[in-house]
């Protein structure tokens, strides 16, 4: 979004040597940001034996595809976790879009008699919260969501921050004349919203939709709190569980009778890194295309009515 504006700004430029220094500094930071991901990719393609001997190397002695072969051969649980993650991401994002947009549209309408009250009702949740323990008790003992897919979807469905972003979008981007024209045509509130307003608010929908999708894809916290059933474990949470059970086995392998077969059945080091790559891959490939919507959310969020 910034490029078109930048081109017009032809002020004095920094001198060539300074430009070289700036480029080197920016390149260094960029490499620091991207390197860990590349490193994990390299580890996932390393030969398991070589890795056990030499540790994690930037240029390993021997490469191998075994980690990925292993995953695709025995990867039923990974596939299932992928399925859970995709499901909660799609369904969660849709619910979040509908709930947040409807609420935001209503409180953006000047003619809505209760708009002050409902604006406050949403904003107050950003200022004060019951905390983790009461929330946990409500979700498990009142709503009985533990060990259900709902526990992964509902706690993140509504977000006051998204509502504020969307409200700003409606207020600043949609001329009152559009809504008035809907009224004159005799369209109801819902018709006006869906036929006239939403097509104009697509960038806003994209922004909160993408923020929400990212949050669902990356969520492990709700699974940590509410999910025991291994069939309902999403991707991020599975990676976490593998890690802690590995640690547990390592710590107890020497002094207990835990059979070594469990240890050998656990995915090897390289396979775990391959899972990290598979869990991150879609995001790393997709975000450069959606980057501008995240920036938009950030800058729109700061602007107010």
């Amino acid at each position, binding site marked *: 979004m910034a490029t078109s504006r*930048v081109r017009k*700004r032809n*002020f004095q430029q920094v001198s060539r040597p*300074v430009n070289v220094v*700036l480029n080197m500094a*920016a*390149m260094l930071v960029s490499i*620091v*940001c991207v390197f*860990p991901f590349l*490193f*994990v990719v390299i*580890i996932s393609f390393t030969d398991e034996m070589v890795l056990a001997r030499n540790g*994690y190397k930037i240029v390993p002695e021997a490469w191998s595809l075994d980690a990925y072969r292993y995953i695709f051969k025995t990867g039923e649980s990974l596939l299932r976790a992928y399925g859970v993650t995709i499901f909660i991401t799609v369904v969660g994002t849709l619910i979040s879009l509908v709930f947040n947009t*409807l*609420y935001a549209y209503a*409180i953006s*309408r000047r003619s*809505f*008699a*209760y708009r002050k009250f*409902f604006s406050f*009702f949403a904003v107050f*949740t*950003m*200022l004060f*919260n*019951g*905390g*983790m*323990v*009461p*929330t946990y*008790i*409500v979700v498990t*003992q*009142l709503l009985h969501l533990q060990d259900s897919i709902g526990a992964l979807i509902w706690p993140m469905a*509504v977000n006051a921050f998204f509502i504020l972003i969307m409200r700003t979008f409606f207020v600043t981007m949609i001329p009152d004349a559009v809504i008035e024209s809907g009224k004159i045509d005799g369209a109801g*509130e*819902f018709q006006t919203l869906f036929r006239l307003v939403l097509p104009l608010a697509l960038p806003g929908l994209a922004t909160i939709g993408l923020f929400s999708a990212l949050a669902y894809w990356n969520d*492990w*916290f709700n699974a940590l709190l509410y999910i025991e059933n291994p069939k309902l474990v999403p991707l*991020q*949470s599975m*990676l*976490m569980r593998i890690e*802690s059970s590995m*640690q547990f086995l390592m710590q107890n392998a020497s002094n207990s009778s835990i059979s070594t077969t469990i240890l050998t059945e656990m995915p090897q*080091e390289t396979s775990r*890194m391959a899972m*990290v790559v598979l869990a991150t891959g879609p*995001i*790393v490939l997709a975000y*450069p295309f959606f980057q501008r919507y*995240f*920036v938009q959310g*950030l*800058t729109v969020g*700061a*602007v107010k009515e």
Partner: protein
Amino acid sequence: MLSRSFKRFRQNKMLLLMVLPAAIWFVLFSYLPMAGSVIAFVEYRYDSNGFLSSIWNSKWVGLRNFEFLFQTSDALIITRNTVLYNLAFIVLGLVLAVALAVLLVEIRNRRMSKTYQTAMFMPYFLSWVIVGYFVFSFLSTSKGLLNQLTSWFGLDALNWYAEPKYWPFILVFIYLWKFVGYNSIMYLAAIMGIDGSLYEAAMIDGAGKWKQIVHITLPQLTSLMTILTLLAVGRIFYADFGLFYQVPRDSGLLYSTTNVIDTYVYRGLKTSGEFGMSTAAGLYQSFVGFVLVITSNYIVRKINKDNALF
């Protein structure tokens, strides 16, 4: 009177219908837990008749949970850690983000500048679980890259996950690594919005690039810097749970420098079973957090009404 408010209700029927789903959500997932905070003042016992009856039948103990909490050394440690880490994040984060934004603006080749931005943005999109794996590939005692480096210099391999003294540096570094690209883009957008005639006038007056940055760019950014900083100060009592839980791999040896209010509350709930103290700590966090947000928002409002949260 009654008929008037009923008429008003009917006129707003459709818009009320739109608000309804999210409003119900707010009641269930925000306001009920807020009301549920009373369990900080009781000895909570779950009984099989459900949530409300559990609360009703628990014994009222007043401030006892808070007394227990503040008698432990934990209260001091978690408060200190939460606040000091956040202060470091705020100060270093601000300096680095602004510096990077200025740097990215001044780079001559726009396409290169865009590429750097995209690269620096990447860590923002990764979950803390993934970041935990990344960090492990550097800090693993037997295989990690860092111990390979130190062994070149003839130093012994360090067991990083058992040495609390290094973690303040590690955690601050990881936080900056994850968020600085994202934050700098916000400042970058603000710099793009600065009125170009200011720079032209400065050039006519013979001001060089450095002088332009010091006398135009930075002063133009101060209001944004102040506002973002104040809003961050308002959240100084809240820690990023993922950073402090996933990155140190929940290692008990590191608690002295990695335990923050959020991780303490979680452990009280799920592992150590100190339910009352855990709830009390959560309410202590929400309450102080609330006061801080209100105060900082009040100050933001004084500076620039448009940037206040409410």
